[in-house]
């Protein structure tokens, strides 16, 4: 009896450890997008390479990725290399140059390569607001029906792609 009691502290500790471990995996900042399952919002944006407003007609036939990026965002350069690899595999990516300057963005794509099917400028961040973007980088999956299927906040890498891929239908 007394011997068994001595194991109580150890038991409590194990339970707490499991709890912490479960909590560690979770992203406390994750906010599921209210847009999931809904059609992509309408927009009128200027592509990086021209000066006329375009809307949904500029987008590829789904499924594809929408990637919010900017030259001022350090994590974007980290994910850039992986986006290049995805583009080489033939994944269509729409780039939204978020709250950024066009010249800097052009230079960036010249230096690092251009993984995007099309790059649209969202200088004022209005499209970002419509999409519920809180920072860069963020990546959305749009399915073949033109609906937003998934939202990812932060860098896209191999592990994240495994998840995103599941929504590319």
């Amino acid at each position, binding site marked *: 009896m007394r011997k068994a009691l*001595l194991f109580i502290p150890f038991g409590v500790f194990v339970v707490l*450890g499991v709890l*912490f471990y479960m909590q560690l995996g979770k992203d*406390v900042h994750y906010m599921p997008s209210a847009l999931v399952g809904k059609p992509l919002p309408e927009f009128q944006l200027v592509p990086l390479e021209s000066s006329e407003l375009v809307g949904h007609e500029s987008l590829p036939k789904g499924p594809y990725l929408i990637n919010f990026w900017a030259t001022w965002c350090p994590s974007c350069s980290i994910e850039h290399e992986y986006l290049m690899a995805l583009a080489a595999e033939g994944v269509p990516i729409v780039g939204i140059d978020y709250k950024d300057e066009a010249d800097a963005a052009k230079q960036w794509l010249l230096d690092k390569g251009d993984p995007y099917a099309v790059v649209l400028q969202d200088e004022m961040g209005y499209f970002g607001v419509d999409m519920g973007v809180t920072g860069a980088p963020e990546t959305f999956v749009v399915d073949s029906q033109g609906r937003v299927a998934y939202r990812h906040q932060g860098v896209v890498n191999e592990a994240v792609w495994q998840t995103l891929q599941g929504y590319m239908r």
Partner: protein
Amino acid sequence: MMFPEIGHFALILAMFFAAALGVLPLIGYRTRNGLLLSSAVPLTYVTTALIFLSFVALTLAFVQDDFSVQYVAQNSNTLLPIWYKVSAVWGGHEGSLLLWALILGGWASAVARKSHTLPELTAPVVLAILGIVATGFIAFIVYTSSPFVRLLPETPVDGADLNPLLQDFGLIVHPPTLYMGYVGFSVAFAFAIAALITGNLNSSWARWARPWTNVSWAFLTLGITLGSWWAYYELGWGGWWFWDPVENASLMPWLAGTALVHSLAVTEKRGVFKSWTVLLAIFTFSLSFLGTFLVRSGVLNSVHAFAADPTRGVFILALLVVIIGSSLLLYALRAGEVRSSVSFGITGREAWLLLNNILLTILTLTVLLGTLYPLIFDALGLGKISVGAPYFNAVFGPIALFLIVLMGIGPIAKWHKTKGALLVRHAIAPALLAVLLSAIVYFVGDFDGWVWASLAIALWLSLMCFVEWFSKVAGKNSSLWTRAKKLPRAYYGMQLAHIGVAVALIGVIFVSANSVEKMVRLAPGESVEVNGYEFTFEGIKHVEGPNYVADTGVITVRENGKLIDTMHPQKRLYTTTRQVMTEASLSPGFTRDLYVSLGESLDQGAWGVRIYVKSFVRWIWLGGLMMMAGGLLAAFDPRYRKKAEVAHA
């Protein structure tokens, strides 16, 4: 400019030496190999020296503005004043861990220096335990949080600057003292584990561990006091305690440590509660560790938390599991062998100290529960919640007050058995006097009922301390003074710490019951009256600091028409980080603080101004300092030195 590489290399070496320290003496203990056993002391010194070298290297990188080092670039700036460059070493995650390791080395070396007073087989085992803890911690730094990572070849021209909140005297001294306390409990922990390993669970380990525990406790007390003081003047809200997870993370080891200080006394003097004391030593150190984990892993969100990084969290969790898990397992397997040799009396001082331990443990658990509750709630998928100050006030307040009532009685009780009549005789007059005095304050000041009750408790504690001292020194044979001088230093340490609790409590009562807060809009030339003080907003001056620009408000304070102070609250804009910071202005006093901070600039030159008159707020920290001094006084009682040497002989 090779310092960062030297530092990095020294740290890796330190990790290997610490690992050797964690292994060799234990093998020596098993095989009774004298050579391996005697390696413990030199290995401790070498490890500490290497950590120190690494720390110096990082400090030099800061002093020389070596922005090729990422950690320096993130936490410093050429414009930063030199003393902040030095304190910026522990301004971020990586450096503060290095400080943790350095302090651990310092404590281990101090134990090594005193090792000749310990039994031949105990000292190496104690040092080995500290070596294992150090290995884990240094590995954590080297593998997940090295401060020596270089930014090459693209070295930034200038650094991002230290977080403005941390550019402050309070933050230079707060982390080192807090860590001295946290890490110091590792010594008591190591003694406890060594006692379990050697099976030498008689009361001698408690005697060795006591002074170490008292010193760590004193440092932790000072660290928490400084933290509270810093939050008070720097965060600009005028509060002195926020029940923030990071604050709770330091309060929990303090509560458990307070229990440990008392239970070690019982174990040493009476040889009872042996296995409980061992568990408490493990518990206290676990909470220090847990504090580090909670703050560093980002599991809990907090205003104070530094960077959040899950890989670091996993590493600390693994460390926690290995070190704490194996200690608790060892405890479960070995503690069954101890039997209390002496039984304790249900009316004796042991019983009162047991009550103290129960209540302190309950307090620790309620804080732990409140801190972890949002986590549990979220893990069960019940939603996101926050547990705020009302919970802690509602739970902590009554239990703590009950504990303080008992504090008045405990020291009067005699070991083993106390006659009820003796307690009543001593206690009756102070009790009546305390209730009466606080009733006067209650009626004169027109306060709530709880002020009456809690003030009576604070007064009761102070009076009982005095009565108890008087009962010891009063006598016919010799003068009061000669008897008073004969009482041991440890006794005065206890008294000082206990009165410190009463002083802090008085501060807490009045600051909550008698403070006035006003938020007003003031245009230049306008004034407002708060609690008898007339605050006049004279205008705004533009000021330039080394790394910030500021709007400084000029506010004159008059009492009965007489100018008593001119206050200069600031709104600073730190130019590198583009962060806005409110610097409150204080006019401190023994019975009240005047506290002014600037809000936002409104139109026509007017500003939102926050004005507080805080009653007795200094008493809270004064009480904290008295507790600290009491802890140190008790720790350096010459009695320990003598007994330790006898034990060796």
